[in-house]
């Protein structure tokens, strides 16, 4: 495919071409979600429609609320027994692969991540109600596994038949004396898995955060929010942070434990990786406990260095700043060497990214580092602020689908609220260029004339591939093989295929190597058989 690429693509033309195919109503809706990027001098970007319903019949990348709640947020938490209340399918499909890695301290520590627990509802449970079976299942889970906590996830039919999972949770919590809590994360709630993230995070915040006041003995204590330890990302971030002398109280939710959530309100700073999945938790923790938050990004070597400096600046301690600089100086040379070597082979090539609620943004840094351009990108389940920046939050219209997702009202905790910085200190830091609660979003950082597509469909993917002929495409497993049939390598960024980690310093090296392999593997040169390119001239045996 390389060599045939068209560099001068007019995104408005492509948009028109795509919309022409759709029925009028679909075209009108999609017109607001497909946006040629333009950034003005003040950093303003065009308004894009996001977090709106997927059109029935249009093949989407999206999953559901249950998937976001059980799979993404609670999935990588190893010591909670997660019971799916519903027919077997949902539980079965969210039975995790090792996508989210976890590592208990010893062989004796709880680890339920490789287990799948379900009430496996049958038709009689649908007819007569499933609460009785759920109670019994919780009892059996307790008898068999003696976990610290049990959580319950509602699937579509549970919501319809009206099983009260929260009442069951309260009753069983009382009876068994361990923390038991439920999530109303039926698949039809909201418009994407983002709704499920919200339900899950609210649940953890309500039922677990603040349960354990023990304060970790450490100098610089942070929480890492919105990091899922995909392919071991969290392990590498932890390594780098620890080397700098920064301690992680809790990670939401990669390689996490119940105890870390319970204790997370004792940290001094919240750092937010995936803005989409968790920015509201950071807000709530600030409101209730007084922990300020900053946006960081550990994808990309430069981003990692920048994020470490941001954390160090927050603590205003020269010793920490020096250590961070020393770590960057120590880690960078190896990365630089690899980066330069790989850049030689990747420079000038193009990529497309259609993943997640932040991933399509973060990974652009890594591609930039090896000289590649992202010509088109979009999120699977982001909201407008993830594209345009937090400043648009007050303008976002709340529609019926969002109204279904509970917004928690949070107040200062009378006992546990403790401001980490004075208002003056915060203002000084802001003035010195260290903003809090800020995220500019994806579009301001993308080039003018690139194409931003929210909730991309299969048909749109095909059209973009044909026109842009990118050198690499990043998406999820459902898209992978259709793209590769075109002879274009496809990198999964939800599960990393079999690769990773890609975060922080060593992760950057892994990513450079992976992209190098994918772009420069010779398999794509052989797609055409020899007899396909040279037409037969005469019917004669060559050995005649």
């Amino acid at each position: 495919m390389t060599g045939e690429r068209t560099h001068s693509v007019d995104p408005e033309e492509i948009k028109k071409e795509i919309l022409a195919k759709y029925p009028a109503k679909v075209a009108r809706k999609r017109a607001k979600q497909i946006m040629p990027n333009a950034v003005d001098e003040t950093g303003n970007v065009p308004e894009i429609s996001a977090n709106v319903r997927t059109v029935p019949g249009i093949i989407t990348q999206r999953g559901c609320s249950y998937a976001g709640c059980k799979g993404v947020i609670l999935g990588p938490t190893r010591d909670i027994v997660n019971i799916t209340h519903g027919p077997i399918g949902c539980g079965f499909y969210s039975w995790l692969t090792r996508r989210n890695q976890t590592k208990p301290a010893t062989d004796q520590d709880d680890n339920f991540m490789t287990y799948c627990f379900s009430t496996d509802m049958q038709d009689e449970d649908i007819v007569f109600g499933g609460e009785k079976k759920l109670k019994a299942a919780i009892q059996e889970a307790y008898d068999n596994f003696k976990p610290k906590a049990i959580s319950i996830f509602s699937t579509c039919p549970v919501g319809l038949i009206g099983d009260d999972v929260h009442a069951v949770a309260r009753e069983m919590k009382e009876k068994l004396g361990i923390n038991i809590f439920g999530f109303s994360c039926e698949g039809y709630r909201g418009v994407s898995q983002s709704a499920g993230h919200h339900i899950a995070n609210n649940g953890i915040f309500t039922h677990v955060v603040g349960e354990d006041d023990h304060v970790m003995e450490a100098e610089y204590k942070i929480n890492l929010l919105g990091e899922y330890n995909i392919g071991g990302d969290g392990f590498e971030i932890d390594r780098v942070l620890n080397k700098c002398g920064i301690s992680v109280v809790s990670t939401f939710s990669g390689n996490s434990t119940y105890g870390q959530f319970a204790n997370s309100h004792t940290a001094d700073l919240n750092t937010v990786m995936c803005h989409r999945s968790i920015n509201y938790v950071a807000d709530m923790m600030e409101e209730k406990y007084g922990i300020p938050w900053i946006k960081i990004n550990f994808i990309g070597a430069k981003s990692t260095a920048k994020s470490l400096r941001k954390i160090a600046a927050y603590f205003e301690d020269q010793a920490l700043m020096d250590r961070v600089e020393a770590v960057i100086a120590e880690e960078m040379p190896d990365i630089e060497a690899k980066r330069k070597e790989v850049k030689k082979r990747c420079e000038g090539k193009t990529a497309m990214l259609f993943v997640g609620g932040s991933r399509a943004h973060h990974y652009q840094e890594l591609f930039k580092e090896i000289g590649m351009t992202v010509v088109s990108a979009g999120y699977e389940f982001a909201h407008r602020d993830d594209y345009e920046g937090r400043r648009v939050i007050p303008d976002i219209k709340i529609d019926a689908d969002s109204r279904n997702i509970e917004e928690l009202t949070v107040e200062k905790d009378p006992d546990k609220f403790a401001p980490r910085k004075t208002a003056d200190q915060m203002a000084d830091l802001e003035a010195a260029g260290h903003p809090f609660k800020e995220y500019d979003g994806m579009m301001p950082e993308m080039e003018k004339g690139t194409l931003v597509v929210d909730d991309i469909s299969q048909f749109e993917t095909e059209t973009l591939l044909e026109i842009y002929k990118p050198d690499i495409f990043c998406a999820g497993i459902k898209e992978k093989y259709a793209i590769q049939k075109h002879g274009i390598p496809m990198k999964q960024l939800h599960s990393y295929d079999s690769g990773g980690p890609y975060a922080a310093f060593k992760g950057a090296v892994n990513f450079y190597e992976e992209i190098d392999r994918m772009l420069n593997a010779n398999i794509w040169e052989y797609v055409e058989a020899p007899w396909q390119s040279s037409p037969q001239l005469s019917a004669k045996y060559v050995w005649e």
Partner: protein
Amino acid sequence: MLLRHTTKEIKERKSLTVNPAKTCQPIGAMYAALGIHGCLPHSHGSQGCCAYHRSTLTRHYREPVMAATSSFTEGASVFGGQANLVQAIDNIFTTYDPDLIAVHTTCLSETIGDDVNQIVNKAKKDGKIPEGKYVIHASTPSYVGSHVTGFANMAKSMALQFAKKSGTSNGKFNIVPGFVEPSDMAAIKEMVKTLGISPIMFPDTSNILNGPLTGKYTMYPKGGVSIEELKSTADSIGSIGLGPLASADAVRALDSQFKVPCQVLDLPIGLLATDRFIDALRSAAGVSVPDSITRERGRLLDVISDMHHHLYGKRVALAGDPDQLIPLTEFLMTLGMKPVHIVTGTPGKAFAKRIKEITARLGDEVKVKGPGDMYTLHQWIKNEPVDLLIANTYGKYIARDDDIPYVRFGFPILDRIGHTYFPTVGYRGGIRLLEQILNALMDRMDRDAPEEKFELVM
């Protein structure tokens, strides 16, 4: 220890399933629908189901799996999914231009009681189904049966919603191959053809879910049963359904509605089940079995007799689908092995009864549970160890923790390749299965052998 919480001590469980040995109906229906040429499967429910099913099928086949969804949100769940489905049908035909859409329901649309037949009729009346295009549908509530049931329901819909008797025999045989790999479907078709019989096989996922890399992607690969063939199933001489759970409904429906005589056989896995399949085809079509097939049979026997010393008396644990496990258990018995712990997640009393009949010679040594789960299987193994585990990908954890030689078999297989290309049905498939079993056992022997016993000739 990845399954560190699986204990030897067995406590009764009635309500909690742990590590299921089945999944839900719609995925089976989606898989079956992919076996019709030019078909786009459609999942009538919230979009998560469709996403999960596509992801799982994609991971197992490593091929594109396209399907659309009605994308229910809360409103549709309360007021019914008619508007969503009619809109979806319109959007699909406009945007993706399939020959037909095969709709299956989910627990959501089933629970609210959507009448898909009525909705499809409405779509037709409203002009949303273009001339010459079709929409078929199957009811597949996830809280009944398993993925195998979903396959069966879609296979039945396929025939019934197209079949039309013309009065003239087409001289063909209908074959419903069961929930098996594309490679198996190709092999079944080949066996039938070798006997000189023309098959109409439905569904047929060969060439669809094991397609080539060509530099071009096509949503509807060349393959699958055609609509014309499906219409013609009522004119066939007879039908054979392979695997009672997955295929009986379809062939029996053709029998009762169109008087196409049917037989339901076990999947042709292993020596004896393949014998029965070939013999049934031969008798039904009045043909004689060509030497090539008898030679293949002999080869399988030859391998068994050559390698019997590795097989005899070895204890095996199995998890999977009833249609597969029944002939597989029989095959293991043929090999002189002892299939002692067997679970399926798919409900149904017939399973345990058949297994007990097949393994009667082993008496009380055999534990069987249907529906059961893989947690139970693992606990049995901890109490009474085995020499070999045969299960889908999820058996991997058990095999690692308890250090058991392991053969991947069934659905899904996410961590190996081969299943989509190399069949396990028929005599040749038997040799492949046997090869996998022997390799697992001999790799273990080699690994554990003291140096003085380490041998080249095995």
